[in-house]
């Protein structure tokens, strides 16, 4: 059975991870490569590097970060934040990203999704949607959630999929950073509207929040940042929690109780 994916997000600025850097047991807490190595060991399914501040001059630093992280993992690696054109996407993919995520630029120039899908395949193109409740609909915000648009999240998700996006990274602005749980209604509404996978983001505070978003929220994957920094083995503990509740997840052989003892 297809597993529900657990994705770790590395919020990066100037080459350092800026969220959840208070984890005490990890000496180089802010080093994205060191975090990626640890997550890989714990059985994370995928890694996303987000650099919302990546300006022109900082993109070279971002490329070095991508390279350093890519060296640590043989897992899907997505890069997002400030990717405005094909050149930015090329640089990220050249540095080792398997997927790029587009947000503001895709809204402004939807044909960019098609161009990148033609070039790299739809599996490499993620459309990131930041949405906020507005009455009975979900309004899209751009520029790191700062600027409201007239677009509706469900409609845009459909259009983005038609234009060539291969996955949707769906963030609830209402829930982001609150630890009150994912917005299951938002995720279910989008997931039911498209045939491509939806990655839920924003609001993860407890393991049960993941259970909720995979059942009620109909999400195919869930992304979080700080929850994985709290404790060593958090990824393992989360996956065991999900597995015990009947949700299919990928367990590393080395962590399976009574399973193959070979290193994972």
């Amino acid at each position, binding site marked *: 059975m297809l597993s529900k994916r657990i994705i770790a997000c590395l919020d990066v600025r100037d080459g350092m991870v800026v969220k959840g850097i208070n984890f005490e047991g990890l000496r180089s807490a802010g080093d994205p490569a060191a975090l990626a190595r640890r997550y890989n060991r714990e059985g994370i399914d995928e890694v996303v590097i987000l650099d919302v501040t990546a300006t022109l001059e900082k993109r070279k630093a971002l490329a070095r970060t991508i390279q350093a992280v890519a060296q640590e993992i*043989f*897992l899907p690696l997505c890069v997002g934040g400030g990717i405005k054109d094909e050149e930015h996407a090329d640089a990220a993919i050249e540095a080792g990203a398997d997927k790029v995520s587009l947000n503001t630029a895709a809204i402004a120039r939807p044909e960019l999704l098609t161009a990148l899908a033609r070039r790299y395949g739809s599996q490499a193109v993620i459309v990131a949607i930041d949405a906020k409740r507005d009455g009975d609909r979900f309004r899209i915000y751009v520029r790191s959630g700062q600027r409201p648009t007239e677009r509706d999240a469900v409609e845009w998700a459909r259009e983005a999929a038609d234009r060539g996006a*291969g996955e949707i990274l769906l963030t609830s602005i209402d829930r982001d950073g609150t630890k009150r749980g994912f917005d299951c209604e938002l995720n279910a509404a989008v997931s039911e509207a498209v045939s491509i*996978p939806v990655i839920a983001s924003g609001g993860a505070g407890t393991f049960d929040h993941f259970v909720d978003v995979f059942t009620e929220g109909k999400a195919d994957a869930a992304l979080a940042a700080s929850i994985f920094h709290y404790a060593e083995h958090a990824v393992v503990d989360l996956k065991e929690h999900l597995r015990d509740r009947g949700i299919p997840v990928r367990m590393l052989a080395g962590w399976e109780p009574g399973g193959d003892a070979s290193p994972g």
Partner: protein
Amino acid sequence: MTVALIDYGAGNLTSVRKALTHLGAPFVTPAGPHELAGAAGVIVPGVGNFEATAALAGGWHAAIREAVDRGRPLLGICLGLQWLFEGSDEAPDVPGLGVIAGRCTLIENDAANEATAYRGGIFKVPHVGWNSLERRRDDSWALDGVPDGAQVYFTHSYAAPVTADCVGATTYGLSFASVVEQGHVVGAQFHPEKSGDVGLRVLANFLRRVTRTSSTAAPAMSGS
């Protein structure tokens, strides 16, 4: 023992290169089919629409076929696995290499099997994410050391049929061939370069086969 990694414009090869480098395997990306003669093994990667494999028709097709006939191990990854078959419904006019019998078809849900739609889940195409390999043959060299049920990373909409050449199957809706093997030709529908230690093991098995083949005096040992 240099492996030829075929770049025919179907997706980016960075992660395959990275995995080969990690495993210490010398490889080249030949500029054209004429450069394939010296290769000890061949890897055909690729993502996207089967139409993209039209770029392999003609020169590449003949050169890869010749390498296989000379006993050189061949690995097809993702679209590369599908290309080992006779063709795909995705681009019916584009012929595959045809070393494995059968055609690829669009992934379909098994209406009788509601287990795929567990607890309100939605059956989606493409099939994206980690899923299990069900081993079907103990004598598979490509899956040597890979435990039954190991999870690997997929991203595809079309899939190959489960036939006698299928050594690893995966269930998503209906069952499909996730690993095929016939003699020294092997294909993986999943991405070994993105499938953690399990994927690296499959790549290492292929490279070991390449090394063994190139070190034997008589390389011609076509067929299974």
